[in-house]
């Protein structure tokens, strides 16, 4: 078995995903990067988009909104043998959702919500505006990512 890395996706609300994958692509603020096992330690910001993990040749796409990623190598002591390192990729996002959770129905809703929010944003107070802005970005990201993965194959 080839070497794998440990992917963790965490939001303030819950732990979304924790599993061993072959590689993971992330939308950083500077562009898109792909992390393979034994990547050097890295910290960077994430923009909104999709985190695509590849596990056993299958894509596991997740829609995320803003956050950070921390890549580090953990030394795991095996009782009998030599210690090995595991690359851990921790994604801290404000929101994260598996693409399969974005069903057709939800996309339609998200689209409608995005439209509605856009209209509302024009005549809202400052405080509310922040909330709507975040909501809007979340809705738009959902729509974008769901559209992108509609025709592609991925692991549910």
């Amino acid at each position, binding site marked *: 078995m080839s070497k794998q890395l440990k992917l963790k996706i*965490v939001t*303030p609300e*819950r*732990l979304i995903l924790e599993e061993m994958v072959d590689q993971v692509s992330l939308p950083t603020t500077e562009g898109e990067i792909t992390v393979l096992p034994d990547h050097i330690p890295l*910290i*960077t*910001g994430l923009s909104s988009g999709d985190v695509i993990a590849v596990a056993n040749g299958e894509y596991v796409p997740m829609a995320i909104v803003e956050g950070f990623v*921390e890549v580090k190598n953990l030394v795991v002591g095996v009782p009998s043998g030599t210690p090995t390192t595991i690359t851990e990729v921790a994604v801290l996002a404000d929101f994260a959702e598996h693409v399969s959770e974005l069903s057709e129905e939800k996309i339609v809703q998200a689209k409608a919500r995005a439209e509605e929010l856009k209209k509302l944003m024009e005549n809202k107070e400052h405080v509310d505006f922040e909330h709507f802005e975040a909501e809007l970005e979340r809705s738009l990201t959902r729509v974008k990512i769901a559209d992108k993965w509609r025709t592609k194959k991925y692991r549910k």
Partner: protein
Amino acid sequence: MSNGKAIKNRIKSIKSTKKITKAMELVAASKMKRAVSSTLASRLYAEYSWEILTSIAQNAEELEHPLFTDRSGLPSRNVTADQRKILLILITSNRGLCGAYNAQVIKKAISFLKNLPVGKEGKNIGIDVVSIGKKGDVAMRRLGVNVIASFIDLNDKISLAKIIPVSKLVMDEYTALHYDKVLVAYTDFISALTQRANIKQILPVSKTDLKEVIENLVVGVPSGTPTTKSQKEQKTTYLFEGDKVKLISSLVEKLTRMQIYQMLLESNASEQSSRMVAMKNASDASGEMIDDLTLVFNKARQANITREISEISAGMASVS
């Protein structure tokens, strides 16, 4: 027997009240469970973001960020400042019937307002309030404190998205130099039976405080799950992609937001548990009341029967 019916009616009304309080108790219990579990769920995020922050800090030697620097000592501000200002965020519930929960935190806030140190010119330090929850809002307005914003549409199920306006407002006001300090009055959830009203400073961020908060989160969880801290021994040097300053500032913003979120969750858990206890007491009290009233009712009934019998036998005696 005139009051037999009245007693019966009272028993009936107390019984229906008991049903309601019992139902409220159960609802509060399940809501409390959810609130507690979401408090624990946010722990992991807190831990990771702290780790990232410390790794940045140790690589960048010194964290220089407006949210970190303590402004109270800056001379330039003291000279020009008309008054130094403090912003207090008061977290209360929207609804009553939850024991001393609201009263405690409001009392704490009021005593804080009274004990404010006196400013340079002998004037009080200006204080503004952001209220979360109707109860605190009403109390503060009655006191005549300047409430600059009130958030009363947060329900029991708090999501992070709902905190964004609160945290954004606070951070904008702070970075715009309107305030020197931001404090939060909230209720600490210690256990289902004990909650403590507390006032904590969130801005400027003090690194030791923040660390304490996060460590407390970790301690509050049953051990067994190895934390990331135990696994890494040596410090690694990280590669940073992008602007480090930007990274730090957005990380600090997120940590502050997370702290507010955490405090709201704590307060929510406290609210539900104190409501649960209050409703449990009410149900118990109504049970006792029903027992007492049933006893009174039975006594009255018995007295009535005895009287009737004696009347009949007296009538019999007079006839024969």
